């Protein structure tokens, strides 16, 4: 594991960023933005991971029956990044809804999803 998975997460981030920058279709830009957002969420989850060495992988932070909080703290992965990721996913959900609604309205006004033709403003 180690650094390879972080490099993978950064690769997904760069793929998303590439789609945002280089693609000319509004829908592809939206998809790229989502991939970018989820790559950052993935990074956040990875930061909270904890390996128990020879005993295997970190357990989910759910208190099992008969387990004391001290035992949970010793074996579970960090629950705080998971809380942060939940919030971030919900923010991404709201953003997706807004983006798609805007894309629909843009199609009604411009008749196309091609960003080369959605250029009424001089930028």
């Amino acid at each position, binding site marked *: 594991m180690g650094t390879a998975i972080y490099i993978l997460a950064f690769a997904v981030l760069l793929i998303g960023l590439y789609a*945002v920058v280089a693609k000319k279709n509004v829908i592809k830009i939206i998809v790229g*933005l989502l991939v970018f957002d989820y790559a*950052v969420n993935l990074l956040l989850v990875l*930061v909270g991971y904890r390996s128990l060495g020879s005993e295997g992988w970190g357990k989910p932070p759910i208190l099992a029956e008969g387990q004391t909080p001290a035992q949970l703290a010793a074996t579970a992965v960090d629950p705080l990044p998971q809380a942060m990721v939940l919030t971030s996913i919900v923010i991404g959900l709201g953003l997706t809804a807004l983006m798609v609604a805007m894309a629909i309205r*843009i199609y009604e006004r411009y008749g196309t999803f091609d960003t080369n033709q959605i250029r009424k403003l001089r930028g």
Partner: protein
Amino acid sequence: MMFIVPLLVILPLGAAFCAVAMAEVSFLKRWTGSLATLAVLANLVLAVLLFGTGDLKLFVGGWGPANTLGIEMVCDGLSKLMAVTINLVSLVSFIFAGPYMRRFTKPWLFDAILLIMIGAMNGVVLAGDLFNLFVFLEVAAIASYALVAFGCEAEELEAAFKYLVLGTVGSAFILMGVTVLYSLTGQLNMAKVHMLLPKAGLGSPAVLLAAAALLSGLALKAAMVPFHAWLPDAHPSAPAPVSAMLSGVLIKASGVYAMARIVFNVLGPTPQYAAILMTLGAASMLIGVLLAVGQWDLKRLLAYHSISQMGYVVLVIGAAAQVAARPSPDMALAGLCLFGGLFHLLNHALFKSLLFLSSGSIEHQTGTRELKKMGGLARRMKVTSFCCRVGALSIAGVPPFNGFFSKLIIIVALVLTGHGVLAALAVFVAFVTLISFVKVQRYALEGPPAGLAAQACEAPALMCAAMVILAVLCVATGLAIVPLREHVFGPAADALLSAGRLVSMGGAP
């Protein structure tokens, strides 16, 4: 007094919920604007009341000072200044929006979304931990994307989509920075991160990655020059009260305030961060004003000037960081730099929103934003043109208006910190700002009336009242500079420079 701090966030959000609920009942639908204005007025009164107390700190949900894993709301000098600025500009925008939004089909929706944005901005300036800052930043940003697209015309949607894409990229970079800081220190609380960061090594690649991600995301929110491309499309396309709010407070609360907070109170000022801030500031200052002077669309010209004036603020905050990062820092000089920057921040909120509201009033009456299609408005729209003149003189830095004092302090501070070239650049930029506003006066207010401007009459009374309030404040803040420094800006600069105080407020080490 502690209960005021969450109320500043809860009141606008609760009023937003009430506005949406009231819209279902037919005889209450007309009163959402009044409800919103009352909520923001209450917010402003509470924010002013906060000045009497010292630093306040509130752990939400009972997560105590012992383990700082919960949400913390912190109200120090800088938060109080920003809270008053935000609520003041919001109040005036709501007063203006009363008559202005009648032409739109859903004014209650506008009130609700704008209230959400105001509540979120109050949350940004009161946030004491990094993730809460990010969440409120996102809420304010999403509300602003919806507000820019409010009219649903082609240009507004295009501008809003561009703003949305760039803003989301910026926010994701901010989250990445927060992630890296969390992985280094195991804490999200700003004070605790500041304490634990030296153990990870302040110059280590991980901290530099976090700083780079945070600064680029926040520079995008503050519309600094390589990241400014969304602002000249988004701010003109929005309805006028929204433009005033975006240019007047959003780029400050979510951009400049967050940058200052993170560079001074979380990461700690170093020469590298100072150099980055000064470069961003100087580039924004110069490029913003040079692009502004050639614009013929009034609101687009004002939007480019926002970039330029925010460049002033970021430049002098960078100079303060550089002074504070020296081995034997001259705290009085750093305090002077921060005083200039924060005073200019307040002044810009006042005169830029005044200018945007007057441009909205002109557009409401004449139906156009093109300077060449206006003319002679000084005779036909007396109150609007008077307020527009006050705003133009303030932004150009003419005494006794507030812009003069803040620009003077910035230039003097730059000279005293040894950046004579940048001070000369600031003077040049002020001169070009004056030129562009003389152009606005010449084409919009003086000159022969053209087209619809020939039949324009004065704007409705509430719109004029909003503009007059801001114009009076522009003069008053200029004249009241000495008491303001003592009670408002002194504590605000202290809050940034003494990062140790935030730590000692954070409870048990």
